[in-house]
């Protein structure tokens, strides 16, 4: 299976292109309103783009608005692409079993074979015990499991997942994520998410889109470890300063200077980013004198629990400190403090 795709939807300011290789799970990351779900609708055939093309295994699914190309349009039911949405959207009048059997039935299988396939897929997602229930009798997590089985039972060449865990309770999401990890192995899929865990556990490759354009692309671990885009840095939980190379550091357009270690030699004045973990940041009430560290005066905007620690947010950077330190330093939103970070904790690379 290979999938090639490009689309322009002017109304939603979307203009992007990407490919999915055989047995590859691609995570599409991006802020709300960046056009992720729109892209999935175009791929599934539910939305006609102003221009774009899509081929699946060499078969043209979509070709519109391109000069010189014969237009093509394959309706959603004939594409071999299933879509799993945020909500399970199980047909309320059918039992879980008949919901899962819907795809096989639609593809022309006999009632008996379709039901057998449905039993198999319900078993695959650990939902056999719900076979005879109507969707109204299922919890959100149970219903989403059945929805996964239903999508897989349709035997799609490409599976699209639109934030499949977003509507679920935090207590049931991890189990569903593990299940998806199991069933997505050896499959080709595109998963839209803004959860870094989904990308890490489910995807081989990530594409980051912002304002409808691809801003970053590569193997998941690499992109998340060395982000080049502020959104990617934020979901990877990293601090990022973007600017140009200045001496041994990066100077941002608003004058912030952060020194660090560059992996490769960078030319002065080249665009670069300085990236460091919030846990590498120390917080002071007053600038520590004569220190070789980077020191940045900031105003706290927000405090939130982060594991065992407290994440101290400002408009640009974050720091992780212990709860006793928060009390001792009297950290509250609006307080003016100094963030410091050792140059050895800061990675600098070209952007």
């Amino acid at each position, binding site marked *: 299976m290979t999938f090639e795709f490009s689309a322009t939807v002017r109304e939603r300011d979307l203009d992007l292109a990407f490919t999915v290789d055989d047995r590859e799970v691609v995570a599409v990351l991006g802020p709300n309103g960046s056009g992720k779900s729109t892209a999935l609708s175009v791929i*599934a*055939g*539910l939305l006609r783009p102003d221009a774009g093309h899509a081929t699946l295994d060499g078969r043209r699914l979509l070709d519109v608005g391109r000069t010189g190309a014969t237009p093509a349009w394959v*309706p*959603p*039911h*004939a*594409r*071999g*692409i*299933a*879509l799993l*949405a945020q*909500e399970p*959207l199980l*047909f*309320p*009048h059918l039992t879980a079993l008949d919901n899962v059997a*819907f*795809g096989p039935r*639609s*593809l022309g299988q006999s009632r008996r074979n379709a039901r057998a396939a449905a039993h198999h897929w319900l078993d695959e997602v650990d939902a056999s015990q719900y076979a005879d229930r109507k969707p109204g009798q299922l919890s959100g997590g149970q219903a989403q499991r059945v929805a996964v089985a*239903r*999508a897989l039972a*349709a035997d*799609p060449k490409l599976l*699209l997942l639109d934030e499949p865990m977003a509507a679920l309770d935090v207590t049931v999401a991890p189990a569903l994520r593990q299940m998806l990890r199991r069933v997505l192995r050896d499959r080709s899929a595109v998963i839209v998410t803004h959860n870094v865990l989904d990308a890490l556990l489910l995807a081989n490759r990530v594409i980051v889109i912002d304002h409808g354009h691809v801003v970053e692309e590569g193997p998941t671990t690499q992109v998340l470890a060395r982000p080049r885009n502020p959104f990617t840095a934020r979901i990877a939980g990293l601090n990022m300063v973007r600017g140009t190379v200045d001496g041994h550091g990066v100077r941002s357009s608003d004058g912030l200077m952060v020194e660090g270690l560059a992996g490769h030699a960078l030319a002065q004045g080249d665009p670069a980013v300085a990236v460091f973990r919030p846990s590498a940041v120390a917080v002071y009430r007053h600038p520590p004198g004569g220190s070789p560290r980077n020191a940045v005066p900031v105003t706290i905007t927000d405090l939130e629990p982060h594991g065992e620690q407290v994440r101290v947010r400002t408009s640009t950077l974050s720091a992780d400190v212990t709860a006793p330190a928060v009390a001792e330093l009297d950290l509250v939103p609006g307080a003016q403090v100094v963030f410091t970070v050792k140059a050895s904790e800061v990675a600098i690379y070209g952007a």
Partner: protein
Amino acid sequence: MAGSRYPGLPGWVFVPAAVGALFVVLPLAAMLGTVQWSDFPSLIASESSVAALVLSLQTSTTSTVLCVILGVPMAMVLARSAFPGQQLLRSLTLLPLVLPPVVGGIALLYTFGRKGLIGESLEVLGIQIAFSTTAVVMAQTFVALPFLVVSLEGALRTAGRRYESVAATLGARPTTVLRRVTVPLVLPALASGAVLSFARALGEFGATITFAGSLQGVTRTLPLEIYLQRETDPDAAVALSLVLVVIAVIVVGLGRGARGA
């Protein structure tokens, strides 16, 4: 019911509400009081009455079936597709709701009547529609169709397209989606819409008398029969009215049942 919720209504609201309820119930009670119970069986069993009742039930059922056959696709096109002039078409479709039925009857007459737009050509083919039982069914369908279209279109819009989109990505062709997803989802609305159409067809008077006339056993439905009897035999008119009320109550009950399902 366990516990009763604080209604949160100002007390004075109950006064006009009670007046309104009385306004509806009192005439029915007055009618009940006028019925000659001893003669009731013979009053409603006269040849012309039975003919009218049978004709009414037959034509109303037929026009309800027609409303479903024509109205379901109309509601789907109005709710799901987009084309130029759709708003105008929707308004025109709903016109019979607000049109005086007599005007509807005249419009039908000038379309399908002997000298009408299409009627003239049909006349050449030896087909006469006006003043036949077919005309009764057409008049009833004309006034009842909007009821089904309105209730079904609303239900289709409320249900949304999301289930249909999912069904399509699971490999279901449009006809399969329609049969296995769309129709089951709006079935309660379809049932209550059909009941409303039946009720409207049963009560139809103005368009029928204009377009179909009043021939006993052919076009004289129960409302027409009641109107005529009122001149000659008021007691029979009241008895027949009661029959119509009973049928209406049953129909409304069925409609509520369908809606609650």
